[in-house]
């Protein structure tokens, strides 16, 4: 009953579907993937509920007292127990800043990858299915895009934008700009992957059958070929999320990403880095650890997904 009873007459019961799928089956026995998924979910929840969980609001200047600056984490001597992970140079609570920073990092990572996927899948699908001149033009465009490194494009675009429109507008639009820049710089990964699997699917007889049934091109492309070409997309998506989070962190570290008053993990690391040599290691090490763990669990899940979705690697049951 419940959700299962609501499924439509043409749909299999969702729970049976999940249980019998290779994903559900494999997750049940892969301890590392379970742990990675649990950690990722925990971090995602922490990020989503940051306003509830965080003891202070790091975006509110009134909650910051400069007298509290550079306090060490709670387990170190002469710490203030109200700041569990210590404070940064402005006296901001580091735990709150990390929770909000995680939020920004995840938001930018996911949205940038969605944008990459949207552009890349559309381009790859059109190039693969329509072929001919469309294919040549789109894939050469992808090659050109790939010949510029992501960081180079991002640095130039962001630097020009900041000079042209001023720091104020820049800090207002920083999230959007980072999503756009990282999203646009990396779409060819998706386009190439999707195109390759579309070319393989296009040859199969069920596509002939779909044409015989009188379906239009768009319907065949999006409803029949795309779902069959999606497994590699899931795999690269995980890697791309990790990459996008790292790109954002790198740009923020270089001072081109999130402004200091709305920090992401990268800008926290960056602003704390200046104080490392004065002994305040926690300001940069703790956000750094969070970033490493986040990227690590995403990559572990990506590896697991690749093993499950790649039929050549099926190891028995």
């Amino acid at each position: 009953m419940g959700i299962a009873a609501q499924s439509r007459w043409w749909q299999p019961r969702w729970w049976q579907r999940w249980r019998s799928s290779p994903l559900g089956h494999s997750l049940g026995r892969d301890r590392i993937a379970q742990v990675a998924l649990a950690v990722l979910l925990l971090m995602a929840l922490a990020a989503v509920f940051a306003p509830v969980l965080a003891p202070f609001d790091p975006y509110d200047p009134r909650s910051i007292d400069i007298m509290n600056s550079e306090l060490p984490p709670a387990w170190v001597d002469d710490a203030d127990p109200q700041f569990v992970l210590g404070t940064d140079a402005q006296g901001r609570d580091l735990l709150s800043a990390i929770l909000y920073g995680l939020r920004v990092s995840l938001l930018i990572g996911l949205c940038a990858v969605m944008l990459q996927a949207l552009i890349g899948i559309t381009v790859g699908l059109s190039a693969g299915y329509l072929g001919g001149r469309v294919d040549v033009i789109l894939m050469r465009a992808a090659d050109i895009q790939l010949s510029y490194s992501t960081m180079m494009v991002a640095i130039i675009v962001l630097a020009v934008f900041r000079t042209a429109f001023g720091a104020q507008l820049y800090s207002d639009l920083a999230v959007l700009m980072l999503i756009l820049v990282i999203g646009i710089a990396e779409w060819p990964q998706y386009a190439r992957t999707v195109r390759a699997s579309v070319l393989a699917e296009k040859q199969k007889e069920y596509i002939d059958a779909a044409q015989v049934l009188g379906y239009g091109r768009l319907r065949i492309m999006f409803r029949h070929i795309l779902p069959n070409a999606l497994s590699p997309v899931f795999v690269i998506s995980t890697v791309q999320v990790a990459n996008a989070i790292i790109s954002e962190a790198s740009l923020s570290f270089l001072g081109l990403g999130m402004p200091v008053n709305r920090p992401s993990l990268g800008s926290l690391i960056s602003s704390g880095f200046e104080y490392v040599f004065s002994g305040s290691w926690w300001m940069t090490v703790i956000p750094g650890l969070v970033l490493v763990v986040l990227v690590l669990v995403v990559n572990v899940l990506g590896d697991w997904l690749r093993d499950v979705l790649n039929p050549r690697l099926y190891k028995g049951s």
Partner: protein
Amino acid sequence: MALLEVRDLVVEFGLREGASMALDGISFALEPGERLGIVGESGAGKSVAAFSILNLLSAPGYIASGQIIFDGVDLASLSESALRTVRGRRIGMIFQDPMMTLNPVLSIGEQMLECLRAHSNCSESEARHICIERLRQVQIPSPEQRLRQYPHELSGGMRQRVIIAIALLLDPQLIIADEPTTALDVTIQAEIMQLLRELCDNEGVALLLITHDLGVVAQLTHRTMVLYAGRVVEQAETAALIRAPRHPYTRGLLDALPERTEPGRPLNQIPGSMPGLQSMPSGCAFHPRCNLARARCQSESPALQHGVACWEAAC
């Protein structure tokens, strides 16, 4: 009036070496409710004929000339969007390999529903009713549960039944079956043949059956057309063709049936193989493999006269 009339259909493949003919002026007609078999070896052009009727030849193939008149309209000159209202709705098609013809990621119900939605605007409950009705017609047990299942959960014979159900979904006037039983084992083959025959009889659907199996043709069709190297070499009532084949190629095909060989002796076969598109012999394309070939066969190509295209048989 004939339901389908193909006139002088020429299909060419534009290859790097120049265009070569896959179908060289074939003509035939199909009455409503009639069942016509097209037989021939691999490479004779059977499947090309089937796909050209739906104007779905994939590059580099194209219809060079000729007409395909279906219900008074020439499909060869119809626009793509007009063709889509014919495909799936008025002409259904069944393919060789039921393992490959269903989309692996859509449930049976989704695939049937999609076909209904693409061609008619019936409500969801009507659609469900039609789907179940069709599945029952092709003798699938507990159709309600099948709708939720994916193709990989069904056996080969079951899948072919689903494919037939989808082909019949919108009451087409013609079904093109391209080797519908080749990929199935013999007992299932017989069941599917029986099913096709009953469905065509009950619904008054015409059937164009493409196969290399003369046994299947004999069971199912009214008339038979034998193709060799893109040409019709013989056309006759199926019973007459089986009883008294006139073209040496048809005779060769019939002699090659295992039941026509005495036990313990090697199977009869036609020596040689079908010529490739690039290496078509002069005159009658069959002459290098024919034991009746004369000098005339090497130079002049015989036309189809009185249902047979052969210099030796025609006179």
